[in-house]
């Protein structure tokens, strides 16, 4: 197999980083676990295969080591296929065959320079490199593609090692940047944010080895290192019947906390930002260790607001975070309220938020529901079509609550469904997709209220029966050699358990199966009028630049006073024209959002997760005037050049 044979797959590598955690109980790539660098993980092999195929890097001796470290155990195929329908072993086969074609002298030795010697003296020989092959695997997940700069990768284990690295970088006058699991970079680096989010040369401090994790059940807190992912923390918390308020499974908790303050569906009750953080240890740009609890540090809550607060590179490296955990109620249940239009969904969700109902509360789009629970993108598309055309199901108010709140919701909502129906939808999604344009669906569509008919009326039983939901049925759509594994997997209760899926969040990366996405949205006052204006401000640019845009989810914060919205632009990031269009849409969406009072686009909260949100959100920014918007456009042009250069 040639590298060019798998180029279509490797080019689309989304760098979600899920292959670096054991989210399916399969274990993790043993080569990656042993060597640490991204190059040894499936994600890195994919990137490397692409970079070699596109002649962006020359082979070195490290290539042999990387290729030979893989035993083709197939764990990565199971993990990656579950999320993105890709099979990284194909890239590994192509790398193996490519290596065979090379004469031994083609594998160059990478000479050490003073900086890599210094790094190795700090972290040990195995944990620092300047090898271009290993560095190439970090492209598009912390290093800009085709960057000509000179880079180093260091994988420290302790805070003191990071201090020494910062001092080394400062003495050589080169920049450095921390990397958690690269999930934010994986998305941002495909857009015009690549420049401000990266360094043009210098040291990548890969924090993956810093996995200290300690749960204190007495104080209901956890203290973690920067390499701990959401999945790992949640698993440790659950062992004590506790829950962490964390983002997607693969994201590093500290990076996420620092970046955006961790807003989730649980934020309805648990809060966000500094509501959940007790203390942090961090290293400033002079290499000094500080703690949020130190009396004499500069005011850590000082932050810019608005237009000039765009800063995608954190000013400090957080090396330890103590955060609150939360007790899990014994009678928690999932309850879903389907809606045809957003306005009605917002009315209910806002009322629940104001009354503090729902430990977890969100308005979820049809797109998220269908993409997350469907086993393949094709099925998701069919399911999406059916939901829209026949079921008139466009939004869901998605709640996890106790039995008392459940009763209240059932009183407030016309129709609801729960765990049983969701399980049927998950396991029956392929069957449902096959029913596209069936007489049953046509009959449902003719009902006065299709949602009520399907989820609350007499047709509910027929509908559920029609789905014939079972793991055996579901896995028929998977590659033959993986079906046995997936049948066993889907037979595990957690894979169809709404609460488990909300806790561990292993499904969102399914958004990346077909195309890359770019998250849009931000923070805003929680009134419906503002939210609908923001949705419009995000939707219009997508339409204007022919981007597939879709509402993602909305969480209310602080009892409905504020809201956080994610709206996504989907596009083919391997297509330069599509990238240009998405960049234009991003800029236009900023402009439109800033014109609305109280709205702060997501990017303008970046690197401020540990700041008190009051200093970022309040006072609500007045919508910018036309004159100010003109200055904003000039700022964008100064930063990113004109439209024709994007």
């Amino acid at each position: 197999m040639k590298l060019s044979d798998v180029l279509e797959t490797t080019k689309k590598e989304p760098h979600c980083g899920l292959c670096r955690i054991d989210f399916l109980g399969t274990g993790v790539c043993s080569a990656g676990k042993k060597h640490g660098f991204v190059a040894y993980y499936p994600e890195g092999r994919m990137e490397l295969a692409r970079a070699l195929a596109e002649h962006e890097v020359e082979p070195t001796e490290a290539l042999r080591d990387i290729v030979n470290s893989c035993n083709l155990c197939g764990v990565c195929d199971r993990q990656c296929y579950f999320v993105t329908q890709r099979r990284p072993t194909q890239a590994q086969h192509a790398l193996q065959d490519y290596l065979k074609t090379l004469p031994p002298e083609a594998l160059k030795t990478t000479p050490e320079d003073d900086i890599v010697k210094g790094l190795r003296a700090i972290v040990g020989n195995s944990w620092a490199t300047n090898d271009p092959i290993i560095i190439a695997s970090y492209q598009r997940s912390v290093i800009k593609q085709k960057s000509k700069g000179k880079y180093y990768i260091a994988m420290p284990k302790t805070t003191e090692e990071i201090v020494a690295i910062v001092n080394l970088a400062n003495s050589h006058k080169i920049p450095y940047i921390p990397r958690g699991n690269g999930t934010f970079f994986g998305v941002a680096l495909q857009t015009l944010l690549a420049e401000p989010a990266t360094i043009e040369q210098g040291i990548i401090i890969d924090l993956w080895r810093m996995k200290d994790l300690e749960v204190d059940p007495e104080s209901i807190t956890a203290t973690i290192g920067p390499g701990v992912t959401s999945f790992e923390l949640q698993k440790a918390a659950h062992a004590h019947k506790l829950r962490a308020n964390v983002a997607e499974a693969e994201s590093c908790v500290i990076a996420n906390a620092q970046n955006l303050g961790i807003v989730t569906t649980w934020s309805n009750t648990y809060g966000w930002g500094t509501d959940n953080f007790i203390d942090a240890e961090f290293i400033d740009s002079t290499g000094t260790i500080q703690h949020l609890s130190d009396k004499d540090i500069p005011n850590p809550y000082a932050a810019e607001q608005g237009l000039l607060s765009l800063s995608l590179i954190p000013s400090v490296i957080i090396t330890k975070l103590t955060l609150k955990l939360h007790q899990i109620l014994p009678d928690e249940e999932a309850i879903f309220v389907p809606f045809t239009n957003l306005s009605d969904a917002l009315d209910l969700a806002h009322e629940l938020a104001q009354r503090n109902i729902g430990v977890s509360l969100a308005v979820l789009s049809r797109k998220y529901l269908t993409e997350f629970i469907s086993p393949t993108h094709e099925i998701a598309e069919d399911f999406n079509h059916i939901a829209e055309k026949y079921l008139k199901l466009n939004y869901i108010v998605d709640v996890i609550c106790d039995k008392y709140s459940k009763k209240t919701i059932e009183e407030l909502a016309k129709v609801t469904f729960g765990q049983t129906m969701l399980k049927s939808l998950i396991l029956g999604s392929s069957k449902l997709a096959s029913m596209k344009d069936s007489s049953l669906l046509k009959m449902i569509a003719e009902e006065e209220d299709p949602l009520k008919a399907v989820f609350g009326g007499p047709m509910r039983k027929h509908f559920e029966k029609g789905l014939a939901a079972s793991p055996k049925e579901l896995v028929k759509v998977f590659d033959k050699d993986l079906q046995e594994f997936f049948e066993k997997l889907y037979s595990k209760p957690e894979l169809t358990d709404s609460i488990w899926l909300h806790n561990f969040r292993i499904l969102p990366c399914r958004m990346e199966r077909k195309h890359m996405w770019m998250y849009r949205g931000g923070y805003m006052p929680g009134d419906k009028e503002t939210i609908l204006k923001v949705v419009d401000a995000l939707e219009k640019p997508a339409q204007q630049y022919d981007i597939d845009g879709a509402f993602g989810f909305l969480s209310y914060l602080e009892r409905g006073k504020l809201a956080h919205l994610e709206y996504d632009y989907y596009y083919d990031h391997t297509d330069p024209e599509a990238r240009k269009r998405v960049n234009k849409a991003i800029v236009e969406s900023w402009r439109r959002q800033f014109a609305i009072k109280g709205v702060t686009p997501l990017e303008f909260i970046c690197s401020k997760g540990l700041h008190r949100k009051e200093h970022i959100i309040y006072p609500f920014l007045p919508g910018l005037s036309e004159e100010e918007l003109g200055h904003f456009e000039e700022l964008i042009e100064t930063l990113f050049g004109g439209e024709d250069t994007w």
Partner: protein
Amino acid sequence: MVKYLSQEWAEQAKKKVLTELDKAKDLKNMNASLLNVVQNIPPDNKTIYYYIKFTDGNLDELITSTDESIKQKQADFIVAGDYTTFIQINNGQMSSAMALLKNRVKMTGNKMKALTITKPIDNYNRCVNGVPTDY
């Protein structure tokens, strides 16, 4: 070639701005003063203060000095950063706005006013880039 931030460089830079930039079109008749604090200049890590002042788009002052007393001029904006970063800004590798965004420089001053001078300052930097400079 003149040495970056030397008196000769300052003179040439000022002359170039005054002769080549249009006060209204390029400098937007801006009224602003800016003190750049250029730190860690080799070989002995000294600091040079680089002060500019515009009135109605006219470059009134362009001073470079090691004397801290220049701080008494009370510039509208103070931008502090490493010598290597200012080289990147001066040779056009990075705009000053991008340096700010990448946390390479720290700025104090009214941020909304800063927004209004982003473009003219960028035009100023582009013009000054044209002075043959030795770093």
